C-alpha cells in the first residue's frame, strides 16, 4: 500500500525527499541531512545558521567577552575574584525574575509588574518574619503564595476579560508597588535580622557552598548530562534514527565540567560559590527541562507560535496562559526574596528602579524573542551575565545612576534590534 511514486521531474529544485531513493534499505535516513559528517559538517552548520539568522547564543557570548574586556581595561579590579563573587551574588535575584520573563515572552505576552511584585513579596516576607515574628520558612512560603495569587489575578483578567497583558501588568506595576508601600508602613524600611537564617543564606559567610561540594556537584552534573544524552542517543539508534556520536557527547559533557570547574575555582579563590547562584542555576535547569521535555512546555511554544493552531489542536490555551502568569509572578516574588536576603533589608526602593528593565533586558539579550515562541530558559542566565557584568562594571566606575540607566536602556534597545534583525534574516531565509 505504500506507494513509492517516482519523484516527478518538475520537483527537481525541491529538497531531497524523505525516504527517497538515496535511503539505505531498512535504515531511515532523513533528518539532519543538512549536516555533513565530521568537523566540516559542524562548520557548515554553523555558517548557515549565521546566514539565516539562527544566531543562538553567539551574539550574547561575543557581547559578554567585549564587555569583560572593556571593563577590565577600564578597571583591573573587575576580574578580581572578590568582584566576581560580588557579581555572582548580585545576579541571582534579577536572574530568577528574568527566568519568569522568558516564560511570559515565550507566550508572546509581557509582564511589566515583575519589579513591583518582587518588591511586594519582599515586603510581605519582612513584615511577617520581622514584625509578626513568623517562622522564616513559613514567611517565605506565604510571600511566594502572594506572588502566585497576583499572577493568577493577572492571568484571569488577561484571559477571561481580554485585557491586553501589557495593560494588565502595567496597572499591576502601580498597584503592587502601592501594596508594597502600604505593607511596609510608616518607616518604609525593615531590616532583616543580620544573624537570622535568611540573611545568612543570602549574604554572610554561610551563604557559600563548600568548595569540595561545588566541585563534586559540577562533576555530578556533567556525568548526568553525559548519561542522559548517551541514553537518548542509544534509544535513537535503536529506533533507527540518526543519533549523536558518543564522542561528541563525551566532549560536550567534558566541556561543561571544565566550564563549571573553572567557575568554581575562580570563585573559590575568594569566598566561594554563593548558594543563591546555585538556586538560580538549578531553577534555569528545571525550567529548561520543563520547556523542552514536557507537553506543557511544548504547549507554551505552540501558543507563542500560533495561538489559533494551539487552540485547534485542543490545547487548554487559557489555562496554560494563566499558569504562565502565575509562574512569572511567583518567580518575580522569589527573585525579590533572594534580593532581600542579599540586601539584608527591605525598603520602598526594593524592586523598583532598574529591576524591571534589567530582567526584561536579560531575557531578551539572552535570545528570547519579543515576538513569542522563540527562546530558552538559558537565555535568562546568559542575558543576566551580560546585565550583571554591565551593572557591576558601571558601579566600579562609580558612574551616576543617570548614566547607568541610559547605558542599560541602550543595551536593551540594542538587544531588541538584534532580535528584530535576526527575525528579518529568518524570514528572508524562509525560516
Amino acid at each position: 500500500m505504500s506507494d513509492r511514486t517516482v519523484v516527478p521531474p518538475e520537483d527537481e529544485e525541491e529538497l531531497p525527499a524523505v525516504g527517497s531513493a538515496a535511503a539505505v534499505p531498512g535504515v531511515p535516513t532523513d533528518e539532519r541531512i543538512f549536516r555533513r559528517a565530521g568537523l566540516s559538517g559542524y562548520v557548515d552548520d554553523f555558517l548557515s545558521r549565521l546566514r539565516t539568522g539562527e544566531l543562538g547564543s553567539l551574539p550574547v557570548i561575543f557581547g559578554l567577552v567585549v564587555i569583560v574586556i572593556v571593563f577590565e581595561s577600564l578597571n583591573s579590579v573587575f576580574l578580581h575574584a572578590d568582584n566576581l563573587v560580588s557579581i555572582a551574588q548580585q545576579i541571582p535575584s534579577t536572574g530568577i525574575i528574568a527566568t519568569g520573563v522568558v516564560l511570559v515572552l515565550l507566550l508572546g505576552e509581557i509582564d511589566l509588574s515583575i519589579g513591583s511584585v518582587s518588591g511586594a513579596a519582599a515586603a510581605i516576607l519582612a513584615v511577617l518574619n520581622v514584625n509578626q515574628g513568623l517562622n522564616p520558612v513559613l514567611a517565605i512560603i506565604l510571600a511566594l503564595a502572594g506572588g502566585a495569587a497576583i499572577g493568577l489575578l493577572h492571568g484571569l483578567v488577561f484571559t477571561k476579560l481580554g485585557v491586553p497583558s501589557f495593560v494588565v501588568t502595567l496597572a499591576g506595576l502601580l498597584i503592587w508597588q502601592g501594596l508594597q508601600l502600604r505593607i511596609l508602613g510608616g518607616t518604609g524600611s525593615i531590616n532583616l535580622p543580620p544573624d537570622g537564617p535568611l540573611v545568612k543564606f543570602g549574604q554572610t559567610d554561610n551563604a557559600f557552598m563548600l568548595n569540595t561540594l561545588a566541585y563534586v556537584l559540577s562533576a555530578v552534573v556533567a556525568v548526568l548530562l553525559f548519561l542522559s544524552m548517551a541514553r537518548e542517543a542509544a534509544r535513537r539508534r535503536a529506533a533507527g534514527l540518526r543519533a549523536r556520536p558518543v564522542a561528541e557527547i563525551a566532549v560536550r559533557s567534558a566541556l561543561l565540567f571544565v566550564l563549571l570547574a573553572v567557575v568554581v575555582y575562580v570563585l573559590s579563590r575568594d569566598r566561594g560559590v554563593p548558594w543563591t547562584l546555585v538556586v538560580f542555576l538549578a531553577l534555569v535547569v528545571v525550567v529548561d527541562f520543563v520547556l523542552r521535555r514536557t507537553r506543557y512546555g511544548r504547549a507554551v511554544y505552540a501558543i507563542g507560535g500560533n495561538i489559533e493552531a494551539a487552540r485547534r489542536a485542543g490545547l487548554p490555551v487559557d489555562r496554560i496562559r494563566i499558569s504562565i502568569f502565575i509562574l512569572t509572578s511567583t518567580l518575580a516574588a522569589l527573585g525579590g526574596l533572594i534580593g532581600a536576603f542579599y540586601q539584608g533589608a527591605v525598603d520602598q526602593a526594593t524592586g523598583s528602579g532598574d529591576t524591571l528593565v534589567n530582567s526584561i533586558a536579560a531575557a531578551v539579550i539572552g535570545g528570547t524573542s519579543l515576538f513569542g515562541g522563540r527562546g530558552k530558559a538559558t537565555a535568562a542566565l546568559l542575558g543576566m551575565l551580560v546585565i550583571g557584568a554591565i551593572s557591576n562594571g558601571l558601579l566600579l566606575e562609580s558612574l551616576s545612576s543617570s548614566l547607568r540607566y541610559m547605558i542599560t536602556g541602550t543595551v536593551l534597545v540594542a538587544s531588541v534590534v538584534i532580535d528584530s534583525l535576526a527575525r528579518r534574516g529568518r524570514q528572508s531565509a524562509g525560516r
Partner: protein
Amino acid sequence: MTATVQEPSPAATGTPVLSLSGINKRFGAVRALSDVQFEVRLGEVVALVGDNGAGKSTLVKVIAGVAPADDGEIRFEGHAVTIPTPHAAQDLGIATVFQDLALCDNLDVVANLYLGREVLRGGLMNEVEMERRSLDLLRQLAAKIPSVRTRVASLSGGQRQVVAISRSLLGEPKVVILDEPTAALGVAQTAEVLNLVERLRERGLGIVLISHNLADVFAVADRIVVLRLGRNGGEFTVGEVDQEDVVAAITGATDNVVAERAARRAHVARPAGEGTES
C-alpha cells in the same frame, strides 16, 4: 495510532461513509444552505465546487462541526449522527484541513504533527517514538520534507500543506476534508499535493476536495458536486463531462433550456435545481 493501516476498500462502489441530506443552514436572514445533499464513499475523491458564496465553506463547516446545521440528516457509516462540535467530527473520523493550515512556524515538523497528542513515556515527551512514526507516515505518503526536524517556517507552501494533511491522518480518519489545498501553490507544489490526495484515496479514505481550480479538480476527483446559491447545482462524474459543463453549473448557465439539453447529451447525472432524491 500510527495511522498506517486503512483497509483499502473497493473504490467508490460501496455505500456512502458520510451522507448528508436536506441540510439547511441560516445565518440571520441569509439562507446559506437550503436542502443540500451530499455524500462521500470510501476510496473516492469528491470535489465540492461553486462560486464565491455558493455555500461550500458553510457545508464544510457543517461537516466539520464548526457550524452545525439547523436541520437535516447526517449519516456516518449508516448511522444517523449529529456533529455539534469539531471534536465530535474528529471522534467520528472526519478530519478537516482548513485553508490556513494551523501550523506553528516556530516548531519542527514532528512537533506540529503531534501537537496536542504527544506520545508520552514516563510522563515526558517521547521524541524518539514521535520522530520514528513521523518518518514512517511521511514515507508512506512519499511526502517530500527535507527533514522532520526542520522548523515548519522553512518549508515551502506545498510542504506545509503536506504536513497539515499528514497531521490530519494521525487521528486515523475515514473522511478527510481539504479546503482549497492548492490555492496559492506553484505548479510543482500543486502536483505534489495532488499526488498526496491520490495516495489518500489509495489508502481507502473518502476525500472531500474544495477547490476553485477546475484543472486540479479534473486531475484528481472522481465526482464533482456543484453548489450554487446554497443549493445543489448539479453532480458530475469525471470522465463523462468536460469543464464547460461544470462551469455552466457553477455559474447557473444550465438554468436555460439550451444548456440543459446540451448538458443532458453530455450525460449529466443530475441537472440543476432538481435533485433532492438520493
